[in-house]
């Protein structure tokens, strides 16, 4: 990871794009911008940024679709910029694979904090490994394998799995996970956790609809178990 993170900002409104570019640049990021989803996908292939800040309302293919297309090949973090905090927007955005979302009018500082938090998720911290059934988590290499095969996890999914694996068999509440993984304040949106758990289960569980590894603890949150 480079010392100065490079971002791709996809936003159709000129004023917002310019202002956010200005603000983020001042926070110390390298920012590339695109006005449409198509341009954004092209720039993504050319520049390989560390993170994408993506507006939902775009002309042509919308932010959700861009998000889905990126997720087909890439696991880089995506932060959605939504003009509406309407629940359906957030839910659709999280389902299409976004790691986090920020509601407009967004404060540059908040966005910067979110960006840094997302980027931190990919950082290494320990040199050990743990295995849960056929699932092996290598904290040194920051890789996860299942039956010997590498799993493609986003930094957020990886971080969630790491936090759960650090306390095996112990239930973590959604608010705890929001603080640990997303570094959100006390007002984290629990749907972020639920959506991420759902995506993670699709990748690590044998049968995602009847999970044996990441279990729901009713009324509390989630727990990582070693399968019997």
């Amino acid at each position, binding site marked *: 990871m480079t010392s100065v993170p490079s971002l791709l900002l996809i936003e159709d409104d000129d004023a917002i794009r310019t202002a956010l570019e200005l603000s983020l640049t001042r926070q110390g990021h390298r920012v590339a911008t695109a006005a449409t989803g198509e341009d954004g996908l092209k720039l993504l292939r050319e520049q390989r940024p560390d993170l994408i800040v993506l507006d939902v309302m775009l002309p042509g293919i919308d932010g959700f679709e861009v998000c889905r297309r990126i997720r087909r090949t890439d696991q880089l973090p995506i932060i959605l910029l939504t003009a509406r905090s309407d629940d359906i927007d957030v839910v659709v955005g999280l389902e299409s694979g976004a790691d986090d979302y920020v509601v407009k009018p967004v404060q540059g500082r908040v966005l910067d904090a979110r960006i840094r938090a997302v980027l931190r998720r990919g950082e290494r911290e320990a040199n050990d490994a743990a295995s849960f059934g056929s699932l092996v988590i290598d904290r040194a290499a920051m890789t996860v394998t299942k039956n010997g095969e590498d799993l493609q996890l986003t930094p957020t999914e990886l971080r969630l799995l790491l936090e759960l694996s650090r306390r095996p068999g112990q239930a973590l509440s959604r608010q705890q996970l929001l603080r640990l993984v997303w570094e959100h304040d006390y*007002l984290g949106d629990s*749907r972020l956790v*639920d959506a991420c758990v759902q995506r993670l289960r699709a990748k690590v569980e044998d049968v*995602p609809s009847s999970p044996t590894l990441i279990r729901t603890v009713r009324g509390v*949150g989630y727990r990582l178990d070693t399968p019997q």
Partner: protein
Amino acid sequence: MSDAHDRLRGWAAAKKAILAGLRFTSLRLRLVVVFALVALTAAVSASGIAYWLNREAVLTRAQDAALSDFQQEMQNRAAALPEHPTQGELQHAANLMASSSQHFSVLLISDDKDGRRIAGNSDLDAITLAEVPSSLRDAVNREQPLTDGNKHPYHLYWQRIVSNDTPYLVGGARVIDGGPTGYMLKSLEPEAKDLNSLAWSLGIATALALIGSALLAQAAATTVLKPVHRLGRAARRLGEGKLDTRLRVSGTDELADLSRTFNRTAENLEKKVADMSAREEASRRFVADMSHELRTPLTAITAVTEVLEEELDAETGSVDPMIEPAVRLVVSETRRLNDLVENLMEVTRFDAGTARLVLDHVDIADQITACIDARAWLDAVDLDAERGIMARIDPRRLDVIMANLIGNALKHGGSPVRVSVRLADSALVIEVRDHGPGIPQDVLPHVFDRFYKASASRPRSEGSGLGLSIALENAHIHGGEITAANSPEGGAVFTFRLPLDASPLTLPPDDEGAVGGGSGEEGGA
């Protein structure tokens, strides 16, 4: 449940209808009574006249026949008797007279040679002198002066009497120029029987007419009342808000006219209401769209003002001191505008009914502490809450409610603000109490109104005017309630009651279900 409810309502309506039908003032009863009265009057007067005329005709005919027969017999038999007949002759004559076709009894009275009064009787039991009314005897025996108009000194007289419940005709005459006096007694029983049966028939006819009229009145009432009932039902449905209620119009009478009028009225009403709600919807959408549109420029402005703010705070002093106040103003007002737009968005979401709960299990004390901490109110707020009270609520909305309640208390009441949390019957009761002057009585009912300011002179920087209204809406969406009052010890108290589990209020039942991996196991929670 609604089925049973409907049935109950239907039954109650039927009972009411029956009671209304029995009520004296009901149209149906009045119609029946009037019809019956008319029928009764007509039938009784017709039968009365018919009976009277018949009676006279029957009696007169029977009487005339008997009397003329009696007169004839008197002339033929009694006048042929010698002046002083014997008892036997008299008896014989009486028997002969009585054997006429008219079946009457005859009593002949005369003086015999010795001047003794003798009586000849056709049937000893049937007639005696005692049965003849004295007034008739007097009239028969009274000699009248002869004039041009009266050629005979004696006349035939008659009278009707009732003896042993049997009507009789009694007639009497005297043979002119010294003959016997004769009386006849004829039973009018056959005639009375005829008349009786006539009266019975007429009575039965009257009764039938009464029944018929009642039935007719019932039918007439039904034809009138059925449309009236339908109209009443339709009006009730209209009143319940079913504005598409229409009546089927049939016929051309006044009730059809009324139905047509009703339909026109309902149509106009429906159109007007649709119009009004469309206009309301349009204005609501306008506010929603407007706040949306405001967000785009605001996002750009907000991002840039932060840059300006950093310049202001920088030690380098790169901002011209002359324009520094202007920049500060822009920064602070942009923040205010942000809040206002945020609140407007929130309000429009509530108005449009699109506000949804995002539930999570949280520790209430932790949440409130975090809320106070995040706004740097820890010094001004005295929190009395035990950790460990877990509730299933929307943490963001709880934060909005608490921030608005505490912020309002700090603004209007002043510190220290006391916040207490306790449990009461599986509900959470959070009290926010300030130590200010309290809320004036005339303001109290309006504290939750949008843009309501207690006094016009209050500086405008005190808030968007939407805070408490949003807090209340947020409480309602949780199934909770906020009330405002003044504490007897002084200061305003806002009491916020909140159910411990708001999940029954969310539709779909669990918001996590949309995205949550755990929904499969938690969905029914």
